[in-house]
């Protein structure tokens, strides 16, 4: 077990590799900060949209059974399993400026490629399925009978959700959201096709690697890891510890 864990974590030691003095500014002045800002702001927006759209769907799914649930989950699984690069190309082919949908969006003033919109939409596509499947599990762990008991005490379904379901699923939902966060923030394969600009951290790291070398890559790599890893990691541990009652 120890050997295996060490093997899996060994690549992290690369952060200490002798690359020469780190260039915090990145390939050209300001590019590091710009990439960090783009990534954090747009990922936060994408995550917000994923949570707003995905939470009701996850709850619906958690209260379905048998064939119906299997069908919906199967569909969601397709979105989760799509290789990112393939998804990026498919998104371009279905939303791009040359398509009917893309043209219609362009007339509305929304650029469907290489724009913040494209960036957020792509992140939505790569993370929504993950979020819904994980949030479904969080909701499914809340016993149906507790909701029914709350209903019999006179609370309508919306208030039952708010006062019983949501608080009990809270940690699991947070873990689901953090999974989606890490997934969206780290997305490279699909984003590089649909939204090379504005360059977020993954794309900027790639650019730096290509054009400026490792000293420019390392600082961004460190920030990238720090913004993607610790929070989801802690939330997962917390969610695991507080398993359900009754």
């Amino acid at each position, binding site marked *: 077990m120890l050997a295996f864990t060490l093997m899996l974590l060994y690549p992290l030691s690369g952060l200490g590799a002798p690359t020469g003095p780190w260039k915090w500014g990145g390939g050209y002045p300001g590019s590091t900060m710009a990439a960090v800002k783009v990534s954090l702001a747009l990922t936060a927006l994408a995550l917000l949209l994923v949570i707003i759209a995905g939470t009701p769907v996850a709850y619906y799914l958690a209260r379905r059974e048998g064939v119906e649930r299997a069908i919906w989950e199967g569909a969601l699984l397709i979105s989760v399993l799509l290789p990112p690069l393939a998804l990026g190309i498919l998104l371009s082919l279905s939303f791009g400026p040359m398509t009917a949908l893309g043209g219609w969006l362009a007339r509305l003033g929304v650029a469907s490629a290489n724009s913040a919109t494209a960036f957020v939409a792509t992140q939505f596509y790569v993370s929504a399925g993950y979020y819904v499947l994980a949030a479904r599990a969080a909701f499914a762990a809340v*016993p149906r*009978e*507790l909701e*029914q*008991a*709350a*209903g*019999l*005490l*006179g*609370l*309508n*379904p919306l*208030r*039952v959700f708010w*006062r*019983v379901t949501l*608080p*009990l699923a809270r940690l699991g939902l947070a873990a689901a959201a953090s999974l989606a966060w890490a997934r969206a923030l780290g997305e490279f394969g699909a984003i590089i096709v649909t939204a090379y600009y504005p360059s977020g951290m993954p794309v900027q790291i790639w650019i730096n690697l290509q054009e400026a070398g490792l000293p420019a890559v390392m600082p961004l790599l460190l920030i990238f890891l720090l913004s993607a890893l610790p929070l989801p990691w802690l939330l997962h541990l917390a969610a695991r510890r507080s398993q*359900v*009652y*009754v």
Partner: protein
Amino acid sequence: MSEMTRFGARLNHPVLEAHIVKARREFSVDVRLSMGRGERLALFGASGAGKSTVLSCIAGFESPDQGEIRLLGSTLFPPSAPLHRRPLAYLTQKDLLFPHLTVAENVCFALDGVAAGGGGAGGRVPAAAWVEELKRRLELESVWEAPARAVSGGQARRVAIARMLVRRPPLVLLDEPFASLDNLLIFELLEMLLEWQHALNFALLAADHRREILVRLCPRVAVIERGRLVQEGTWEEVAAAPATPALARLLA
């Protein structure tokens, strides 16, 4: 106008009129019940006779296939009324306390619905005094601020009872709520329930397969066998002339 005042105005209605038809794997349940205000009726039968199906259909945890259920003149089925529009209490083997809330928050849970304008206890006693009385008489002072998941089995049961009484339900359904408790505790809880029944005059429908518990709670009994009521009367009447051989064995 709150739900309870509206219901309370209809004094001439029976509390519960139910005809419940529901198919199950081995047989179908087909039961008619009628209960007056303050009436205590036992639903007695072997395990698997259909007692839980009847109660759970009245409570709304499941839906009958056919039939009709009326509570104080309002239709609960058909169509199936949502849970929050059923002013009744339902106590099963599980306490179903809300584990993320304190004992106090559990007990007062239903009052939140009242404040928000939902159905509930249009009581003459102000809510605070009523809650205070429940807390004292159910001996919950020592655990009042404790998280509900931290209380003992017997305490949890009393919390569940306080929580259901807060709304002063006109009908209380008991589905073997004493199954996993020791005898001393059962005796204590039975006395407590009877006291509250006298005080609040709710109709009580109690299902169990143990006669000694039901005899203590209810003067009248309806006997259920494979989904049908086979006899109804006082315990003496039923014991004197059991309607079926199976019932005779059960009473022996």
